[in-house]
């Protein structure tokens, strides 16, 4: 009984939040890794483009809500998602046309393109704040809980409870769907394979008749889907605030680098490692140990390694460790 309580406690406060957070990071990290593999630069505007896509989804959601459209118990935002994706695709293709294509043509050093993307980041950042403001926005509707902590306790008779929110379930389900579709696309279709070929060996891809501009366009389209979905899921699960999205840049990059830049499977694994570490390191394990240890050994402290205020330090530490000891990442990726 004690062990069960401990496990339920851990699942409720660490495992389930980490899995849904990890899924959101994974979608973001996949975008970063694809851009790195194919366009060969670190896309610093990723977090803010994510905020832009989510902002579009929120605006459309509000319009739908005021028009009385609803798909209860699912959130209305899911209906707005396609429009958000289209808008984000236009933004990404537009910036590619105006900014990145020039640097590609002159074969600029990657660091130059990274700095350009930093500029794009500031512009998009300003754009989002200008349109929707810097504050928290609430756009989640539909049912909140699949089952609550109390329902779980009453049903199982345990002391500890486990609640699962709709947003968490939707996050995991949609992430699984999107990731499966992405891997199918990359591994089974002609266009997807040509993207991998281009990422592997640009010169040989050109020799084989693969059109680089087409590969780049398709990459941005895929990235538009990934970031908009990631941002919307994060917003539904937590809340939307432009600054938070900018901050997500760090864990997303940490995940992509941890897994091995340019390697999609690595980005996926890296995201869950980062999420689990971030949630695990900042969780107070006292209650968990109270269930498991005899009374004499019970801890007096909170058993919390880091305050939640420092959660970003976790990504940083992991990032530094990987760069020091395994620069190509856990899976085989390109070295940074």
């Amino acid at each position, binding site marked *: 009984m004690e062990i069960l309580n401990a496990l339920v406690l851990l699942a409720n406060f660490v495992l389930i939040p980490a899995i849904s957070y990890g899924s959101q990071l994974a979608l973001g990290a996949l975008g970063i890794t694809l851009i790195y593999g194919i366009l060969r630069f670190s896309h610093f505007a990723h977090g803010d483009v994510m905020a832009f896509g989510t902002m579009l989804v929120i605006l459309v959601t509000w319009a739908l809500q005021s028009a009385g459209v609803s798909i209860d118990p699912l959130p209305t935002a899911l209906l707005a998602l396609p429009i958000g994706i289209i808008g984000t695709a236009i933004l990404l293709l537009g910036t590619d046309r105006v900014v990145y294509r020039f640097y590609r043509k002159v074969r600029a050093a990657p660091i130059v393109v990274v700095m350009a993307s930093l500029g794009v980041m500031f512009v998009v950042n300003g754009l989002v704040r200008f349109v929707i403001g810097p504050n928290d926005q609430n756009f989640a509707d539909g049912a909140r809980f699949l089952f609550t902590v109390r329902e779980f306790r009453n049903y199982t008779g345990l002391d500890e409870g486990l609640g699962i929110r709709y947003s968490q379930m939707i996050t995991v389900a949609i992430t699984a769907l999107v990731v499966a579709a992405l891997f199918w696309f990359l591994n089974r279709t*002609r266009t997807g394979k040509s993207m*991998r*070929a281009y990422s*592997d*060996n640009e010169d*040989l891809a*050109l*020799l*084989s*008749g693969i059109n680089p501009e087409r590969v780049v366009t398709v990459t941005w389209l895929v990235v538009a889907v990934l970031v908009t979905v990631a941002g919307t899921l994060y917003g539904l699960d937590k809340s939307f605030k432009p600054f938070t999205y900018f901050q997500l840049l760090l864990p997303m990059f940490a995940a992509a680098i941890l897994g091995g830049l340019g390697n999609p499977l690595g980005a996926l694994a890296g995201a869950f490692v980062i999420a689990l570490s971030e949630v695990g390191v900042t969780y107070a394990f006292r209650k968990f140990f109270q269930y498991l240890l005899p009374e004499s050994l019970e801890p007096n402290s909170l058993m919390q390694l880091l305050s939640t205020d420092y959660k970003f330090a976790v990504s940083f530490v992991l990032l530094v460790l990987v760069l020091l000891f395994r620069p190509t990442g856990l899976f085989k990726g390109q070295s940074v």
Partner: protein
Amino acid sequence: MSEHPVTPDPEAVLIGDAMTGGYGAADILHDCTIAVDKGQIAVIVGPNGAGKSTAMKAVFGMLNLRKGQVRLNGEDITSLSPQDRVAKGMGFVPQTRNIFPSMTVQENLEMGAFIRGDDYRETMEQIYHLFPILRDKRNQAAGELSGGQRQQVAVGRALMTKPSVLMLDEPTAGVSPIVMDELFDRIIEIARTGISILMVEQNARQALEIAHKGYVLVQGANRFTDTGQALLADPEVRRSFLGG
């Protein structure tokens, strides 16, 4: 014997005629002529820095020519990009980075056929027949294969477009002598199917043994041109370029 003008067989499949040019202001090639007949093997040999690879790159359009012409099956292709030359029937295997390492062997071949709109399964079958080891390893990442096997993948990829000319830039660089012999056997086999072969080789003696035609370049110009056997028998060629 110094530089001499080479008159290519007008019937040749591929002719780089009197090519002059280089990467920058200075010319590397001087009036250099290279030609391959149908189903034959032509080898470019010469000392380091003789412009062997440059001559091949010039034929493939990776270099701007100031003078001269490249003709494929009688058509002037001097102004075409390398990609367009592939579409016209030239296959090129670069010396390094000639595979897609993270993709499987089969996917490498599929990418070779990227510009083909038709069914390429028969061509792939022929390549698997030519290089049986590739069939066994078709689902393995090409980057995980041995040096010799990678070269087979690289050659296979270039053959997927069904080229009329296959160009190989030092195909045996960095492989063991046994693997080298095997690769040369395969190259002879490819030539027998009617595909012309033009290759640059460091291992001059072995390459000339299988060559129908050999071009000895020195400082970007033709020095000796003859059949492979005749060059091997020529005492001056032996002394200067084959180490006695």
